[in-house]
């Protein structure tokens, strides 16, 4: 399961100035203003494609492994984050929502990353339902339909020389993680979120780089998650992987690194016939094999992943060394290749290093 909220919260704790550290667990602000993630409120689609403004954190997260006509690879990420900040609720200018978008595009040699921030209710960022739209300034995700994110067109301009436009088409069902979308992040269940994915995406479109147009296509992975629950103390960060295997299977693996206990592993395997299998400490093995120095940090960029009962034993290798996103909350996010018992491609996210 993917846990961008946790990522951001961890990063917020570890990388922000002390003055901006979150209040402790028992802070009154923490608990009373935000909606809770509970089993009593099940995840329902298509309603839950929309924003959940009462929850503290939310994101719509797209990653894609694209290729042009001559086999040149591109790694694309588009994410819209929503934060709720009750201290802002009395403003006449904006509401208590803050929107943040990240766009990252890699080819073998270059990396473009941009971040946009905006306050809610001003009119230049948000999520609408008819049609379903996610937007910040001129970055637009526009669905053909109301209330549902796909099929859609995504257009982003990073500078005069870098633009892309892609069609996003689904080729399978949405996957609800955990217990019908109620997703636990830690062994004690304190940390949790509502979380679902659409791993069967196909993207096709154009990337304009320095005046040259590349027709690209490839598989994409979409996550939507929302939560109000902060990290417990002792969590250092996590490593997350999404894999598109060549046999049609999809796999998500997640490793939460803890201070005083072993890392907590979880994941989801979607077999080619569409069966969804929950993975846990017993069924999933995830081991870092090689480290590299990236942005003055020592990061594990080569991994071994095993799902014993399904005879999956693969090596995950980063597409290129520096896939660092330097935003308000910096993290490592980039494409990987899969080899071993299965082959394929995917994405990797590393936080808290």
């Amino acid at each position: 399961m993917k846990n961008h909220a946790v990522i951001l919260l961890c990063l917020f704790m570890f990388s922000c100035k002390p003055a901006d550290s979150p209040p402790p667990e028992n802070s009154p602000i923490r608990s009373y203003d935000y909606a809770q993630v509970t089993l009593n409120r099940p995840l329902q689609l298509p309603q839950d494609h929309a924003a959940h403004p009462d929850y503290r954190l939310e994101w719509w997260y797209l990653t894609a492994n694209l290729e042009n006509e001559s086999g040149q690879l591109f790694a694309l990420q588009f994410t819209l984050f929503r934060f709720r900040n009750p201290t802002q609720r009395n403003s006449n200018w904006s509401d208590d929502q803050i929107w943040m978008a990240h766009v990252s595009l890699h080819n073998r040699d270059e990396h473009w990353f941009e971040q946009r921030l905006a306050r809610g209710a001003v009119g230049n960022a948000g999520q609408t339902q008819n049609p379903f739209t996610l937007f910040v300034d001129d970055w637009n995700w526009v669905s053909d339909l109301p209330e549902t994110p796909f099929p859609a067109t995504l257009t982003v301009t990073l500078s005069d020389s870098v633009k892309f436009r892609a069609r996003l088409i689904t080729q399978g069902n949405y996957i609800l993680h955990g217990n019908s979308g109620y997703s636990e992040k830690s062994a004690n269940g304190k940390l949790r979120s509502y979380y679902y994915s659409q791993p069967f995406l196909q993207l096709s479109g154009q990337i304009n780089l320095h005046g040259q147009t590349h027709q690209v296509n490839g598989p994409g992975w979409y996550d939507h998650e929302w939560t109000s629950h902060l990290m417990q103390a002792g969590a250092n960060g996590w490593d997350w992987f999404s894999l598109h295997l060549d046999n049609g299977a999809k796999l998500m693996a997640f490793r939460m690194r803890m201070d005083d206990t072993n890392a907590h592993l979880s994941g989801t395997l979607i077999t080619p016939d569409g069966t969804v299998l929950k993975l846990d400490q017993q069924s999933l093995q995830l081991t870092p094999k090689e480290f590299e120095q990236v942005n003055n940090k020592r990061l594990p960029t080569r991994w071994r992943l095993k799902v014993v009962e399904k005879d999956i034993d693969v090596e995950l290798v980063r597409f290129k060394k520096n896939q660092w996103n330097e935003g308000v909350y910096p993290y490592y996010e980039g494409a990987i290749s899969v080899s071993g018992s299965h082959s394929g491609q995917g994405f990797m996210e590393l936080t808290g290093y």
Partner: protein
Amino acid sequence: MLTCVALNRKHPWTSILVFVAIVIASSGLVMVHLINQGASEQWPDNNAAWIAPKWTVESSGKLPLTREDYAHLRRAGFHELAAFVHYTGPLYFEHTGSTPSGLSLLAVDTAALPWKPASFPVFSPLSEKSARIWAHPQTARLIEEQSLLTDDAAPLPVLEVSAASLPKHMLVMDIADFFTASRTTEKYPLTGLAVTSSLPESRQRALRNLLPTHLQLKRSSTIESGGTLGDSFKLSLWALGVLMMVVCMFIVVNALHLMLRFRLYTLLKLRQLGIGVTTLSTSVTLEMLFLGLTASSVGMVLGILLTQQLAPGINQTFTNVLETKFILLPINPWQLMSITWAATALVITAITYVPIRQLQRNLTGRGPGRQRPADRWLKGATVLLCSSALLTTILAKSPAWALISIALTLLAGTGVMLLFMPHLLKLCAQFIPAGWPLAHWSIASTLQLSKQTRLAVCAFFIALTANIGMTVMVDSFRQATDSWLQARIIAPFYLAAPLPVTEPPPAGISLFERLQASAIHRGHSVELRSLPADSRFQSSVQIEPDGGVDWPRFDTGEQAVINQQLAFRFHLSAGDSLPMQLNDGTHISPVIGGIYVDYGNPNSQVLLNARLIESSRDPVYRYAIWYGTPATLNDLTEWLNHAAPGGELFDSEALRKLSMEEFERTFVVTNHLNIITLAVAGLSFMISVALLGQQTSAQLSLLRSLGVSTLKLRLSVLIQYGTLCLFAALMAMPFGLLLCWLLINKVNRYAFHWIYPVSVDSALLMQAILTSIGIMLMVLCIPAARLNGRLDLRNTRVL
């Protein structure tokens, strides 16, 4: 390569000279880069962009600028826009109800500002910290942690002191925090949308096409932003660094010429043994590159160490002179290394081109090239440089172009010196009678020597011209400052009080208050100072045109006088109107009666009648005090003890002394840099002399054989080089004065917007020249003293 190494052992001094010069140049450049980086951190570009943006979208007056307009433009792709409001209403202290006048409030959409690590202000989506307003430390002291309200009694957030990068008397806050309670966009419409990054032509056009009719794109008429002082300081540092580099380049070229001259014989032998010209010239080039890269690495390390050592002192200078901090940022040595290596490799490749070509010609027996074309080339280059220098001087309208004109003037001066030196020497030789055979020989051989030591002389010339220029400039500034202080500090005492002095002074004591406030003129912040309606004050202000101020009209507030800085920034002159908005929202528009000098002030300033600024004055209480019969100094101090408790009394002499001491401290670094540059040029000259001594030993042996004593010979050699230095110095004088003029009337004019008269103290000038020549002669004593008294009858080597 092995031969090159062996040759280095035989003539190590040329390699040492190259090494030392590159170490000095590299360390200088690294220091300049680190200091500017540390200074830049205090003047972040994005601050300048949104506090005083170059471009703004504003209402054209028909309809207000709305939040919807803002969202529409950002959705259209103009993400460099950030909405802001200039609150111009009054501010009140919540508990006392009084007004901290002179404060302005800027509310900006901080989420829209370009983000980079350690940018200001910090925007953190997950922060649950309550809203804040930020202010400069001095402004924060005015507020003293009291809560503020706007005019509808709506409270403002808690004050947080920022880094010293905000303008004084300005409060900054997020726009979402501003529009709370009764503050709405209807009541306080948006002032504008600041363009927070550069806006190229094409983007300007696209934005204009998109704007609805009630909005317009406006360009600020101010030329600079709050970062002017920082830009000027950075520019000055870079100028000094580049000057040092130019001198070092001359030294390197000189050393390379000497090196190749001494190796030519060996290289010819190698050629005869069958080693190709390309191989030989490539080996020399590679040797120079290796030397250069090694030296630049050492220079880089030295530069880092020196900057670290000097950081506290640099910070002190920044704090005292520029009112900001210097912070040495984390150093990335690999990044610095790659920059210095790249620069060194580029420079060495460029400057070795001509000497290597000459070497190749020598090795292939084509000879060094005819003399006449080289002279023609020099004449042509000098004419071109002189024309370019003249043109850029006339057309320079910015500090960068002014520096370019200075560089061209220096190079043109070098060309003129090289052209005229032989003629001067010939003229001089004619005046030395042949009846003084040794002196006659000294001068006659100096002409020959001048050709061999051209590059060393050029380095000395440039260093001396810069020395003269800087010395006269600093001295002119000193004299101008001193006379200005003498004129302006007219009262025997000055009082800085924490509160207004309301108690009437006793007989014999008179107080004149000086009010201060600030205003906005064409988007630019202006200091306002009152000038009492008293002839003593009026005559203390040095105004141009003289007699142009109609003092009666000044006293009624119809006229004001402005400082040079304001006049130059906005091309204002006497008779122009000066519309300004005061902090309390009122507008005034006095007519400019004259322009006064205000040396050292980076800000624009207006002197006007106190009544114009009474309502918007700063809570700053300054008084000029006279006392006389029947009051004594004791009476004055006693009265002040209860009339102005906590006040500080300044003796005007002490004030003048303090000001001049500050002045001297400011120019300490410049003086040191001058000496270093001169010393480096001297080092180059010395090593040239030492190396050429080996070549000229045949002539010296001959003179010894003819009965000239060793002492006289050494004196003759000193006369030779002394003559070269003297003529270089004589020619450096006019160019040094020209350089001074350029520094004042172009660089200072466009960087700081004020000028002062060039004042040449001939004694100081002679002192500078004689000191430089003296230093050179002292330096030259070393190789002269080492002249070999031994004679070699069979001096058969011919180069």
